[in-house]
């Protein structure tokens, strides 16, 4: 196996730790559903297998993988979008007497 793949994996993990550590607790649920959608990247492998392989077993395993991965990707991104849409910016006009913002 190409050792380069392992190098990429380790470096990407470090990048992941750095970025994710900066996500505030408020957004942890969207982070989970969004990153979950990203893990649906398996859809790439599923497309290759389902689309190009003729061996019967392989083809149907690939098809099942494609369906599951697509649910994961489409559903994951959509539900994340639905959640993030709800995070309203503070409306300063309607609540002028709230708190002294830090």
């Amino acid at each position, binding site marked *: 196996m190409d050792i380069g793949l392992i190098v990429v994996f380790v470096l990407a993990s470090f990048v992941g730790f750095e970025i*994710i550590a900066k996500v505030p607790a408020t957004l942890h649920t969207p*982070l989970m559903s*969004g990153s979950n959608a990203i*893990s649906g990247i398996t859809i790439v492998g599923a497309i290759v297998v389902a689309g190009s392989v*003729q061996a019967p077993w392989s083809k149907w395993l690939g098809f099942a993988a494609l369906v599951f991965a697509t649910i*994961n990707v489409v559903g994951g991104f959509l*539900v994340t979008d639905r959640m993030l849409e709800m995070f309203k910016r503070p409306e300063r006009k309607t609540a002028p007497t709230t708190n002294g913002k830090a």
Partner: protein
Amino acid sequence: MLQTIITLAYLVAAALFIFGLKRLSSPVTARGGNRMAALGMLIAVLAALFEEQILNIPELIGGLALGGLIGVLLAKRVAMTSMPELVAAFNGFGGIASALVAGAEVMRYAGREEAIVPFTPTLALTIALSVLIGTVTFSGSFVAYGKLNGRIKSMGFPGLRLVSIAVGLGVLAAIAWMIVSAPDFPGLDPEAVPLALAALAGLAFFLGIFLVLPIGGADMPVVVALLNSYSGLAAAATGFVLQNYALIVSGALVGASGLILTTIMCEAMNRSLLNVLLGGFGAEASGGTSTGDTEERPVRSTSPDDVAVLMSYAGSAIVVPGYGLAVAQAQHEVREMAEMLQKQGVEVRYAIHPVAGRMPGHMNVLLAEANVPYDQLIEMDDINADFPTTDVVLVVGANDVVNPAARDDENSPIYGMPILNVDEAENVIVLKRSMNTGYAGIQNELFFNPKTQMLFGDAKDSIKGVIDELKELQPA
């Protein structure tokens, strides 16, 4: 040439994932970030379509359409309270997809006289890991799903741990069998590698079930976060099988993300990951430790009218929401009450404990759905210093996260868990159905504190009562 372009497209996709996740560092940019990641995924999908000669167009379109349709329906229909279940289910789908792709990779070799490229022991190992992680994620996620929506009760049977260990050893044996059979694959008949793989998949399926089954319901947020991490690792493992950078990078990102969230949740409960996974807590707590003679002690109860008066004359108030708020569907009423108070000049904020909901950040989403602006949602570490100068704290459906025993009582099972120090405030009002104990089954000293007044009843009705009285108090 084409292969280079495809690889570059994967690089663009991975970069978009990273930028997209980076934008999640603020609620202002988060939505754009998610769309950026979705664009990355679209690019990756388009690139994959050019990877190899497409032969099965109907299957491909059918699979994408079917999966897409189910995904849209699930995403549109889910209630925000059920978000943990949905994320658990999506984790499971991602896991099984990874396992199936790796399995399909093996079946490409099966039944041939000899392989076009050799089936190496290394390839056997990567495929085995991919199938193992993917399948454990799948079955574990669906047990978590069942527990979150209450269909599966926390259970263990004597010897469950031994069975898990036996299944784990079986998994190792199946992997070893696959690796040693690799040089003869394909060719021999019957072929050992597919058999070993089938055995591995079956054992891994039960391993996932046995691993999650004994874990208590209160610990599900940790489990969902951990399974999130697994779903990423499964994708990365499949990336090693297919030698595909897009899968490896994305999988690593998600793996890291899930691991961070797991750590945060464990710290918020003052438990080690091992302790959670071994499922010790539920058993400990059901023994009813350290409650002793508290049952007969008096508590002060109050009425919605008194609460309304108290709060409207307060300078500052903090609402502490717990999962009970979501169960009572009282988010909108709480927001309405807070807005009325804010109009009168009362400073109202929300104190969010990391484990307030049923998954990391869940309470924030529930309040966001009720149109609470996110700058009023304050994290535990930032708001704890403010309690001594706060006039009224309103605890709605939260229990263990405000239990002073976590701070003071070394014998308490939750001792050491970081809590919101609401007992430092001037007045504490606790909205609760009854004097029953919380999720962890522990009695709460806070309720007997002289500063505390209990407002018994359904949280939604109670808050409505407060709102009605506030309306009457307001000058017309």
